[in-house]
């Protein structure tokens, strides 16, 4: 009962904070924050790091972490770009239509991201490497491969219709936002309504008990990291389409933000707890702050300091709120 109450108040608190941030920004940045263009730019940025945050959340729910999501996105983006620009499988462009090239490019990117996730999952589940080290290693490998392929240069010039994914609108709703909402709903379904999702939470809260209960821990872990990679791949498609180019290193600022959003959204870094609604509120809140800082023309460096401070602050608050909620329990035992 208490746990549920706290969990719910946590989401509510977060929601109130988000509304608070919104009001503060609207009042103190009159005529700049509450503008259509600002909202459009916000809704085009949310999907990219939102999908990356979901990817990291998945790993966190198992008690691990996926530091390689940005690198996966880069490598998948490079793969897609090679096909889109005709460097890979140029015969596709010839007799076949542009749409086919785009579909193959997207599939290629997603396959790459799934394979990258598979490597992570294998290292963590079968080699039993700590997730933070395994994904730190693969982070370096994946982005290294991307750099070697492109020799560090950017790839630009994608087919016009591909750019619709990142820049188009349907009923004036930006396409990336539509994709993001769809992906969030799918993830909510996976986490709350499938046996995979259920087992994921159980594994995260006690991997020994889940093994003793007949849950295939390794299978769950591999699938989790593959799914995490898949979401990174989706983020990369939106990203390269929005800016009509790919260069290894794109989006590296998102890593800290995505982790911050997870912790802010109530995902327990030690595993087992956290839900998608908290995460989404966290994402929106961070984006409100982000665009406020942009309007105020904060430098990226000072923003980094702020994000870092926020991450630490959230953990300090978590520490105190959890020791508060533990106190009555201790008395009960006596």
């Amino acid at each position, binding site marked *: 009962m208490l*746990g549920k109450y706290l969990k719910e108040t946590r989401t509510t608190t977060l929601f109130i904070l988000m509304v608070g941030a919104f009001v503060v920004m609207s009042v103190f940045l009159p005529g700049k924050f509450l503008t259509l263009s600002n909202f459009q730019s916000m809704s085009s940025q949310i999907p990219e790091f939102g999908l990356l945050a979901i990817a990291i959340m998945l790993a966190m729910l198992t008690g691990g972490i996926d530091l390689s999501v940005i690198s996966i996105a880069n490598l998948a983006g490079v793969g897609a770009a090679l096909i889109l620009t005709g460097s890979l499988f140029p015969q596709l462009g010839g007799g076949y239509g542009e749409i086919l090239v785009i579909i193959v490019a997207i599939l290629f990117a997603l396959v790459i991201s799934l394979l990258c996730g598979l490597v992570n999952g294998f290292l963590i589940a079968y080699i039993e490497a700590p997730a933070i080290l395994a994904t730190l290693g693969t982070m370096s490998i994946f982005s290294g491969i991307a750099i070697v392929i492109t020799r560090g240069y950017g790839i630009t010039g994608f087919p016009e219709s591909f750019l619709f994914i990142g820049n188009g609108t349907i009923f004036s709703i930006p396409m990336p936002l539509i994709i993001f909402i769809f992906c969030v709903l799918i993830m909510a379904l996976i986490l709350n309504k499938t046996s995979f*999702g259920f087992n994921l939470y159980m594994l995260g809260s006690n991997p020994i008990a889940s*093994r003793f209960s007949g849950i295939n821990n390794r299978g769950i872990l591999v699938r989790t990291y593959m799914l995490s990679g898949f979401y990174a791949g989706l983020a990369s498609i939106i990203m390269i389409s929005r800016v009509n180019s790919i260069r290894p290193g794109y989006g590296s600022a998102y890593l800290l933000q995505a982790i911050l959003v997870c912790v802010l959204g109530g995902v327990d870094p030690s595993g087992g707890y956290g839900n998608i609604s908290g995460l989404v509120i966290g994402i929106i809140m961070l984006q409100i702050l982000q665009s406020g800082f942009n309007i105020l023309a904060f430098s990226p460096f000072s923003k980094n300091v702020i994000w870092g401070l926020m991450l630490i602050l959230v953990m300090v608050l978590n520490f105190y709120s959890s020791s508060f909620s533990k106190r009555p329990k201790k008395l009960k035992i*006596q």
Partner: protein
Amino acid sequence: MAEELLKIQNVSKSYAGVRALDNVNMSIGKGEVHCLVGENGSGKSTLIKIIAGVVKPDEGEIIINGKTFRNLRPIDSINEGIQVIYQDLSLFPNLSVAENISLNQLIVEKRRLINWKEIKDIAKKELSNINREINLSERVENLSIANKQLVAICRALIQNAKLIIMDEPTTAITKREIDYLLSVILDLKKRGISTLFVSHKLSEVLQIAERVTVLRDGKKIGDYSADELDYDTLSFYMSGKEVVSSPFSYEEKHGRKPMLEVKNLSKKGDFKDISFKLKPGEIIGVIGPLGSGRTELALSLFGLNKPDSGEIYINGQLVRMDSPQKAISLGLSYLPEDRLHQGLFLRQSVQNNLVVTILKKLLNKFKLLDHNKKYKYAKEWVNRLSINVPSLEAAAQALSGGNQQRLVIAKWLATDPKIFILDSPTVGIDIASKNNIHNIIKQLAREGMGIIMISDEAPEIFRNCNRIMVMIDGSIVRELNTVDITEDELFDMLSSN
């Protein structure tokens, strides 16, 4: 009774309105071996902490060596010669025997430099005082638990202990080691040093103690001389309930064909050459001390510990147990030894804990979880085993030990197992719940389930099994039918091994 060393008068203590101790009186004489027993939450630990000066009582006084303390501090308690040896012994595993024994002494004297020879001399002298020998330069982590206890006792003696309090000293040691500990205690007694044991293992309490003080719900039930008690009266005093335990009798009505047969199963370092058969409706008790390989054997049967050689047959079919999933699909269930870490998802809800093994049954035709069905299933099992829960959403950690264990049993019964392996099913559980769990197990066997029950408590095994396998050092050394022996004979047999 001899001269009084410690006297506790009208001591009461409340925590947040809950009376942990209610007007308790107790006294310990010089050289007496005294036992304090009570179930979890009866106030044993609080009382010890009060004697050690760690916790202040709300009311009452403590008289040590004739001096009355109203506000006893830990340092007063130590100065008066009271030493507490906690269950984990609080030794430094990476230091030598000599260092462990002498260190406290050096700290008390506020030394800044270490004289290695002196360390050895102090330790040697103390060990010879109780006529025992241990290699002084051996690292403590390499010692047997009995020798570790000896080190802890020496460390206490060096600080002029007059009363040594031992918290659950016999939980992890074998019969022989208990006898050894007892002989040390008798030597201490000759020197006029008193011992206070805290224990929940009744048979050992009766073996060791001269006098027994029973606590229940913070109140003292009484002081008894150990001679006037037996297992049943003591458990009655502790629980306040007349526990009716019906002996288990096996009837061969579910067929004679073994449902589980193990042939020459071996795993290096764990167990060797294990063979036995389990028929439907049987309860086989596996008894042996910690480290005898009993748990490792159970893990192997459940696919969690791959054996090196040997065969496992289920209903006559040779099977390879390579994962718990496989074991479950073959109708096996395993209640693990460590309920808190292996059995439960402590922070997850009762409901989630219950359905984790049967999730497949709760999916609808789109392969999605049916939350109504999940709720109904969980509710049904909570009712069936009368698990006392605040709500199905409550975290498992909010339940009492007995209810937690019934929760783990329920989660396995939900899979409809044919063979159920229960590893130490009633550790740390109060007597009434213990009895309830035993009755559940016996009922399951009567309905035709094959059960293997692992325990290190002889009465538990004797009273609930029809066959007993004694396991020592990885081998089954004796196999016998319960009807052929008495409880005392089983006890003697275990002591002699």
